[in-house]
């Protein structure tokens, strides 16, 4: 409603006092609701939260993520998913239920440095998150360009019901796979389209909080 329902905050800033429900990225001190990260505070009927402008990816069940294989044991691969927790991909997920630790060699399927599109199966902070690539749209990424953006900007990149990213894909003929963890793979047969798509992604990341972003992006995509 009014502009004072949204404010820039840093950690420790008192957003408001009173009988509000504390939501994401805030904490309670007595009856004061305090921001815990740098971002934009929002007061609504549902509660008080801060939309972060910083911070790393915290795994959530059923999130699509792009990961990088960093090592393996005899039973699973360890996958860097750009978070403080390492993703675990069990060998059985790839080899099937008949997987045998003696017979099947993990590196024959996935090796150090390989990129994968995966889904978080489950996560609670007491254990490393379990991931899977057993789905049609998941698996090893064979080609494309990998870009990293701040995970807090991913929702803006996707847009309402995917509108923003579809705009970019249609204008550039690129195929863009967005991981919730801020890792993105862009594939395009045309090198100009590829460069434009990457430029658009960087622009959205940098100006995520600006008002007329959609128009600016469309303008850039249409220009030569």
């Amino acid at each position, binding site marked *: 409603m009014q*502009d004072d329902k949204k*404010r*820039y905050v*840093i*950690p*420790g*800033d*008192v957003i408001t006092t009173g009988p509000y429900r504390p939501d994401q*990225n805030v*904490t309670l*001190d007595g009856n004061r609701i*305090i921001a*815990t*990260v*740098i971002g934009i505070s929002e007061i609504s009927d549902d509660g008080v939260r801060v939309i*972060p*402008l*910083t*911070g*790393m990816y915290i795994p959530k069940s059923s999130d699509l993520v792009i990961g990088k294989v960093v090592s393996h044991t005899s039973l699973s691969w360890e996958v860097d998913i750009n978070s*403080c*927790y*390492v993703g675990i991909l069990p060998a059985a997920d790839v080899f099937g239920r008949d997987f045998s630790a003696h017979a099947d060699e993990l590196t024959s399927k996935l090796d150090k440095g390989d990129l994968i599109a995966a889904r978080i199966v489950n996560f609670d*902070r*007491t254990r490393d998150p379990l991931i899977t690539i057993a789905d049609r749209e998941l698996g090893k990424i064979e080609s494309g360009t990998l870009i990293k953006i701040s995970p*807090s900007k991913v929702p803006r990149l996707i847009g309402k019901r995917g509108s923003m990213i579809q705009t970019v894909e249609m204008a550039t003929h690129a195929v863009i796979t967005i991981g919730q963890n801020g890792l993105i793979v862009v594939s395009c047969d045309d090198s100009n389209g590829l460069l434009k798509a990457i430029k658009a992604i960087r622009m959205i990341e940098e100006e995520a*909080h*600006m008002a007329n972003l959609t128009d600016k992006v469309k303008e850039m995509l249409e220009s030569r």
Partner: protein
Amino acid sequence: MGGRESTLVLLDKNGIRCDGRKIDEPRKIMIKAGVLKNADGSAYIEFGDNKIIAGVFGPRDVHPKHLSNTDTGILRCRYHMSPFSVTERKNPAPSRREIEISKVIKEALLPSLMLEKFPRTVVDVFIEVLQADGGSRCAAIDAASVALADAGIPMRDMVCACAAGKVADTIVLDVNNEEDQAGQADMPVGYMPNLNKVTLLQLDGVLTRDEYKKCIDTAIGGCKLVYQIQKKALTDKFFENGGNQ
């Protein structure tokens, strides 16, 4: 330390200190957030002639594993002085002084961090003093707190730090190097401004009970000034148009 003969006037009859400041005036302070490419969060501070850089990594995996805590993330802190940071070249190996300062800085920052949200991880804070000038541990905390916010670590509050001291029988704000050596007391204070809690407190020197109270109040006043500069550093980096209308 030092040993040069000098006719240093610590406080003249007009209440002006040896470097031209008034008794409640801090040295010049500048903080810049986000100065490093690799670190998750970083900040650079100039506090008087102190030049200090802080870098934060984390939360991240703990190695060796036996240090990790299943209930909460842990904090590690390293305060280190470059060999060229002081008048007589310093051996690069950590001295006992640096080890103690690393510990008190860690304990000054810890209450502000919500590490219980990240069990089995570590947040590493690395502070490097490129040039030292008295009050470096306070300046280090000021930079480290900004670097932690820059890294997106959830925090209950910022931590700001500033020292007060006793020079020529007078309580003054922000003791510089000469005042530290020739003065009567030096009290660094670390403070969380919104929660109103002191998280760093040390003393070198002798104070009466009244002086002790006045010194803490003076230092906290200095902390609040530094807090505005920390805010500005983060606002400049993250918010366009310098923040809220």
